[in-house]
């Protein structure tokens, strides 16, 4: 069903350069100014990189590790690798050396194209353990002047070699592109993995192109979309939205100036198609709310009044009910006075479609943006499915589900409660890991690892990780992640870990959000010196106790989950950190590791003690370790009796 003339990404890029030569393909903010590159330039730049790689002896099937922030040149390096029949392997740019060494070695990367000195340094340190790595090519020459390693090469030099190579072999790249077919391996994306070593999911051109195409049709995307590429290139979502869909749909990808300027750049670009994980939606909301609270009282009152109108109207729209005449008039007024300016201020004025995925999002948060008129929808997917499985359809959005399967994708729930799926995006297997492939892929169906259910209208609802679904000592169902997400819907909580498997009741280890609790403390004149200090303030404990009680109250009404209310909790003395391996780089809790590391704290939660002394190892970014000592309090939480069936 794929046109053989357009069945790989390099072929699609050539088509774009031919059909839309003058259209902007990618933008990058550099030295404070947005630099645009048209499709013709996109292809030309990638061609020079490909020629340079060919001059270095790149062979079909070779792997290129790609490391750095979202930069046009790194996307071009990806395309260049594919043009030569090679496989790009993007890595998380904040990986520590050990993680980088594992992936570069495991993927057998011969080439690495990296952003800057920081990444070069990391690779040079581990090169001894990566025998296959021959060339490290860097984009930004800053600080590289005194490097003398023969394996190092700047991208400019590489392209220069490419120019020379082209004089002898003018048609080399076109010939190589012509050899590519749909079922060639397009990319290996290493999943961060909540347990053990990362696994490299292999995706073919067909996987990605068909999935991208299906979603484009399903969502009605056009070549005039603008998307912001700011999430790690190693992550399947960015690969789908900023690379695969951009090439298939011919739309524009925008690379922000730096990680710190994303919200500012968002406003300058005004994307029409936007993706953000829940924590970013949360951050934006928190920033807005703080700014609103700082405004004069008349503005504050006005904003709150109109936000209430918007919430009422949106609730009725979601329930497919008519919005009353008065509310409709007020909403129209609100659009002029509040919603429009607010959306514009956030850089969301032009958004037609926005997604959230990766973690559960609170219905309140989703409702907030939707009520402002920002069309945020939940999507569900994973690397193994080429990023997309289901999307909430326009006009059929339910706040607590992840929508219906994309065209061509089938979803069923296994007896164990696990979500299974199959479809055109299903990956080829894990690179050099047949055992894991066999565990995950079963007759074309993929074990998602998530526990979920399909509701009456065919909407998928995700409850928890399948393997994390636990039971208390008395047999009560205990879905830790579901509880944690409910907790994290509070602006004051950043991270939570619930324990209770085989125990008499559920208990929680909690990280407060330093920004919002700090602000809360400042407004009340509570002085603090550090995260550890703030987390152990009795006032903060009382604040969080109320948040836990809120969760318990809602659980009371959720049938079998009423028995999973949180009885005791503590506030951790340090923030969970990927450098300490407590959470993954995508901020997923590593439960087993935390169970071991904080065994003393967990025991104390069940011992009836009201405090516990701890000592913890922390790893700094440069790999050094240090020790944190603290005394951690433990508090009871208010629980609510389940109402008997009426």
């Amino acid at each position, binding site marked *: 069903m794929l046109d053989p003339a357009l069945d790989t990404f390099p072929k699609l890029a050539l088509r774009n350069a031919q059909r839309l030569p003058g259209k902007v393909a990618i933008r990058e903010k*550099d*030295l*404070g*100014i947005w630099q645009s590159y048209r499709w013709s330039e996109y292809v030309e730049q990638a061609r020079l990189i490909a020629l340079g790689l060919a001059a270095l002896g790149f062979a079909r099937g070779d792997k290129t590790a790609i490391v750095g922030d979202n930069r046009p040149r790194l996307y071009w390096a990806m395309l260049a690798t594919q043009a030569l029949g090679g496989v790009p392997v993007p890595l998380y740019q904040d990986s520590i050396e050990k993680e980088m060494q594992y992936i570069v070695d495991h993927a057998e990367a011969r080439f690495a194209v990296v952003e800057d000195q920081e990444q070069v340094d990391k690779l040079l340190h581990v090169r001894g353990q990566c025998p296959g790595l021959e060339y490290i090519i860097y984009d930004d020459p*800053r*600080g590289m*002047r*005194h490097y003398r390693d023969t394996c190092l090469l700047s991208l400019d030099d590489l392209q220069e070699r490419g120019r020379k190579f082209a004089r002898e072999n003018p048609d080399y790249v076109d010939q190589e592109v012509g050899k590519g077919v749909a079922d060639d391996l397009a990319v290996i994306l290493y999943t961060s993995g909540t347990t053990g070593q990362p696994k490299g999911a292999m995706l073919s051109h067909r996987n990605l192109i068909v999935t991208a195409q299906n979603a484009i049709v399903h969502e009605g995307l056009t070549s005039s979309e603008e998307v912001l590429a700011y999430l790690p290139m190693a992550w399947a979502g960015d690969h789908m939205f900023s690379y695969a869909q951009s090439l298939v749909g011919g739309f524009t990808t925008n690379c922000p*100036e*730096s990680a*710190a*300027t994303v919200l*500012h750049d968002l406003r300058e670009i005004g994307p029409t198609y936007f993706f953000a994980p829940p924590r970013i939606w949360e951050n934006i909301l928190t920033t807005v709310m703080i700014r609103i609270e700082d405004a004069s009282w008349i503005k504050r009152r006005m904003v709150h009044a109109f936000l209430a109108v918007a919430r009422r109207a949106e609730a009725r729209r979601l329930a497919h009910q008519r919005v009353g005449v008065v509310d409709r008039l007020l909403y129209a007024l609100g659009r002029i006075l509040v919603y429009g300016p607010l959306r514009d201020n956030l850089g969301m004025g032009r958004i037609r479609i926005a997604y959230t995925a990766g973690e559960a999002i609170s219905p309140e948060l989703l409702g907030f943006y939707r009520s402002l008129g920002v069309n945020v929808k939940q999507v569900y997917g994973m690397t193994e499915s080429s990023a997309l499985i289901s999307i909430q359809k326009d006009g059929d959005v339910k706040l607590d589900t992840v929508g219906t399967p994309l065209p061509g994708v089938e979803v069923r729930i296994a007896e164990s409660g696990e979500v299974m799926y199959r479809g055109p995006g299903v990956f080829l297997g894990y690179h050099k890991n047949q055992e894991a492939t066999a565990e995950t892929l079963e007759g074309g169906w993929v074990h998602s690892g998530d526990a979920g259910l399909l509701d009456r209208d065919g909407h998928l609802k995700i409850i928890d990780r399948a393997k994390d679904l636990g039971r208390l000592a008395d047999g009560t169902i205990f879905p830790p992640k579901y509880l944690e997400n409910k907790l994290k819907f509070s602006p004051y909580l950043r991270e939570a870990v619930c324990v209770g498997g085989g125990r008499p009741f559920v208990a929680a280890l909690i990280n407060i959000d330093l920004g919002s609790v700090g602000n809360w403390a400042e407004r009340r004149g509570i002085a603090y010196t550090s995260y550890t200090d703030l987390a152990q303030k009795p006032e903060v404990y009382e604040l969080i106790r109320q948040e836990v009680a809120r969760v318990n109250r809602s659980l009371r009404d959720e049938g079998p989950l009423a028995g999973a209310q949180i009885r005791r909790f503590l506030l951790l003395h340090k923030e969970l950190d990927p450098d300490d391996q407590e959470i993954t780089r995508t901020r997923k809790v590593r439960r087993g590791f935390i169970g071991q590391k904080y065994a003393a704290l967990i025991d104390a939660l069940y011992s009836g003690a009201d405090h516990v002394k701890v000592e913890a190892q922390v790893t700094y970014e*440069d790999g050094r370790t240090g020790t944190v000592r603290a005394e951690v309090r433990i508090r009871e939480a208010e629980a609510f009796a389940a109402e008997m069936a009426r």
Partner: protein
Amino acid sequence: MRPATTNALLEVDGVGVRFGAVQALDQVSLSVRRGEIIAIIGPNGAGKTTLLNVISGFYHPSEGHIRFEGRDRTDLAPYDVAALGIARTFQNVALFKGMSVLDNIMTGRLLKMKGSFLLDALYWGPAKAQELEHRAFVERIIDFLEIQAIRKTPAGRLPYGLQKRVELARALAAEPTLLLLDEPMAGMNVEEKEDMCRFILDVNREFGTTIALIEHDMSVVMDISDHVAALDYGRKIADGTPDEVRGDQAVIDAYLGVSHV
């Protein structure tokens, strides 16, 4: 008189400074080589900042000479010293609090601007081209010091560590040959210090700027400097490589204190 070494960028020769009855600097001689990072250390009141002030022309020495790039410039005013290619930052951050970071850094370019009042006022022709050229240079510094996110933020609203970085940016905007940093890391946390160290080293390597800095954190001093000079009671008590100075008995005594009986 000491023979002038060929690669000395700055020579301080027998300099003395007296405030009333206080001898702030006493017969201090020091040679700063082109391209090096020199740290000036010493206990409080040892005369470190005074020495920096003498070099940058804020004070004029009552005796001795200062030679920069081989020319005597003992009695120049700060403005002229800056024009020679010496820029500095201050112990207490001295930014224009109400101005944006970008404008603050632009002020560092003032010496490079050749303006005509009329053209500037009209923002026309060469004035506009010049503004663009300077702005492009400033943007490179913003990129270099990774402060893109605060370009438009008023300097006074920034946390202390970032203000220090902006001050460094402003000094760099003057494209100095010699950069004087007065306690660039004072009041910073470990992470901010590490960042600042990296920036100082990068400036030195990337632009070849010679750097003289005052610093109290000995681990920082030992890590980044090629050359250390120690002062105590206005006199130079040690001068050499970091290892030499660290092992010097006079320096240890000055820091740990010995009874002056």
